[in-house]
């Protein structure tokens, strides 16, 4: 409750939450909000192709004569679905790895941290690109690839927290009265790191959405769904030369809108749950370096 009050007092956080609410509503109520059903076949005349906005089509029509506004509203579903599931999965993997590596340490912990280092060095987007190109295009494949490559920072974060928590009084006491490792992790360590994990997961949603849109723009989106990235792929191929800004700008601005919302929320959460760490790791070099150094010290 205290945290909620702090969140509501932060204008950036509230702004982010309101911005996200708009997108969530669009995704949930898409069938009622969208003026047309994008799945429905439409009879088009050549004039309808990339037709500019008018009273019937507020954002004009795309290269197949479909209503851009409807596509945009339905596109929110794809982005949010990919963002939330991929972020949830990477949160799950990262937390498990971080807990194991931090609490048990030893050889397994070291091996896991080397894996983290490895994934940190290999360039993400090219790797996703080759995997999807070979494996095939599909929504769940994209979610899998993003989450399997995106858990490393959460793992580092959880591990470094666990390392300090497990030496604290209450954990030592629990152990001395005979509590098992699993019980200590679940009852004592996990609740302590959870707020940090959630703040990180919100930021991860925006990262996942950006990755999905980049992949879709590069022609590797799910062919059965129209995401914002894919709209931009179509628009870039066909609408740039016709100056059809109504097809180009909305999907791009929608991506910026939703990821900015999530960044504002995530940043605010991070400030609340961990006042010592003022910013996200990408903005905070020292935190990143400290985490890397800890991993190395543990490896010795």
């Amino acid at each position, binding site marked *: 409750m205290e945290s909620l009050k702090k969140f509501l007092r932060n204008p950036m956080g509230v702004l982010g939450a309101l911005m996200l609410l708009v997108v969530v509503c669009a995704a949930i109520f898409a069938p009622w909000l969208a003026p047309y059903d994008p799945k429905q076949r439409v009879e088009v005349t050549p004039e309808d192709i990339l037709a500019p906005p008018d009273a019937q089509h507020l954002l004009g029509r795309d290269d197949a004569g479909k209503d851009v506004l409807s596509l945009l509203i339905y596109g929110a579903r794809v982005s949010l679905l990919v963002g939330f599931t991929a972020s949830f999965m990477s949160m799950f993997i990262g937390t498990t790895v971080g807990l194991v590596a931090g609490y048990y340490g030893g050889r397994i912990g070291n091996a896991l941290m*080397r894996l983290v*280092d*490895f994934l*940190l*060095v*290999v*360039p*993400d*987007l*090219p*790797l996703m*690109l*080759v*995997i999807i*190109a*070979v*494996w*095939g295009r599909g929504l769940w494949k994209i979610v899998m690839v993003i989450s399997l490559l995106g858990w490393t920072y959460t793992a580092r974060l959880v591990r470094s927290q666990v390392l300090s928590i497990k030496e604290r009084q209450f954990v030592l006491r629990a152990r001395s009265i005979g509590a098992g490792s699993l019980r200590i992790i679940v009852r004592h360590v996990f609740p302590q790191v959870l707020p940090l994990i959630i703040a990180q997961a919100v930021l991860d949603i*925006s990262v996942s959405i*950006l990755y999905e*849109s*980049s992949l879709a*723009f*590069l*022609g*590797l989106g799910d062919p059965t769904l129209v995401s914002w*990235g894919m709209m*931009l792929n179509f628009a*870039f191929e066909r609408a*740039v030369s016709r*100056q059809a*800004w109504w097809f*180009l700008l909305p999907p*791009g601005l929608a*991506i*910026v809108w939703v*990821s*900015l919302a999530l*960044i*504002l929320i995530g*940043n605010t959460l991070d400030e609340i749950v961990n006042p010592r760490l*003022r*910013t996200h790791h*990408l*903005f*905070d*070099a*020292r935190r*990143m*370096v400290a985490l*890397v150094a800890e991993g190395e010290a543990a490896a010795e």
Partner: protein
Amino acid sequence: MERSNYILRKIVFSVGTLIAVLVFNFFLFRILPGDPVKLIIHSPRMTREAQERIRANFGLDKSVWFDVERLREGDVLGAFDSQFTTYMRNLLRGDLGISFATRKDVTELLAERVWRTVVLVLGGNVIAIVLGMAIGLIAAWRRGTRLDAAILLWGLFSWALPTFFLGIILLILARGHLPVGGMATPGLRPEDGLTYWLDVGKHLILPTLTMAIVYTSEYILIMRSSVMEVLTEDYILTAKAKGLSTLRVLRDHALKNAMLPMVTMIALTFGYTVGGAIQVETVFSWPGIGRLMYEAVQKRDYPVLQGSFLLLAVSVIAANLLADLLYTVLDPRVKAE
């Protein structure tokens, strides 16, 4: 930590990463369902000769990893003659296979294009680092002012901005004023000398600008928080108390100490930069490695994809190692102990 020990460990890690990438690269293109090599070899568009060449090139009649049968027959060396060792041997000879789409040598294709991507990535990054450090330093120094808030907001905004979308916007804005696609105006050739290179330079402006804008804001945010931390240290107070000018405090104390984490972050950001290059080259049809990958995806040209990925991964690994080595030079603590 002893310095040579540290360097050695970094090198071992890089070599390990490199081997892991090689194994992965082989694994991905050979073991996954739908094996692209077998798919392509059964394609009716392929001539018999081409099929044979691919078969020999990939060692398709051999076992994938290890031949247990031959080992049982006592042929220990022969047991290692597999698709994997064939792949590694070809790789060591610099043979990355033949493009399915153009029938050209992949190594030649990459060699022809690699410099175009290097120019783009380096150019964009150098501009971004210089601007990002300067603006980040100012923001940290003017912490809490309107200027700082504006810089921070811009940083957050551009973090949410997809690289390819920024590219498209710049492309629309600059249309008619600057060349927006390709590497040179058609008709001009390298033999034309200065005119040609000036033309190439003009074609480079928009892609480099896109890269620079996206990555500048990333460095601004890193530098800002890094300097902000340094400015709370006691030695800054001491320096101010000594009566040093603002410029000297920032330059000699804040900047120097904020540099160390910057070096590590630049190396880590390099991986993202390469991903950005793929998007930027796609938007502006800049014929580098990124555009090559985009086209290879469209044409399902697997040898080209595999080769390009390998090249990018190796460059990023090398850049990280370089940053680690630079770190040992910059950070006196590494050698002192």
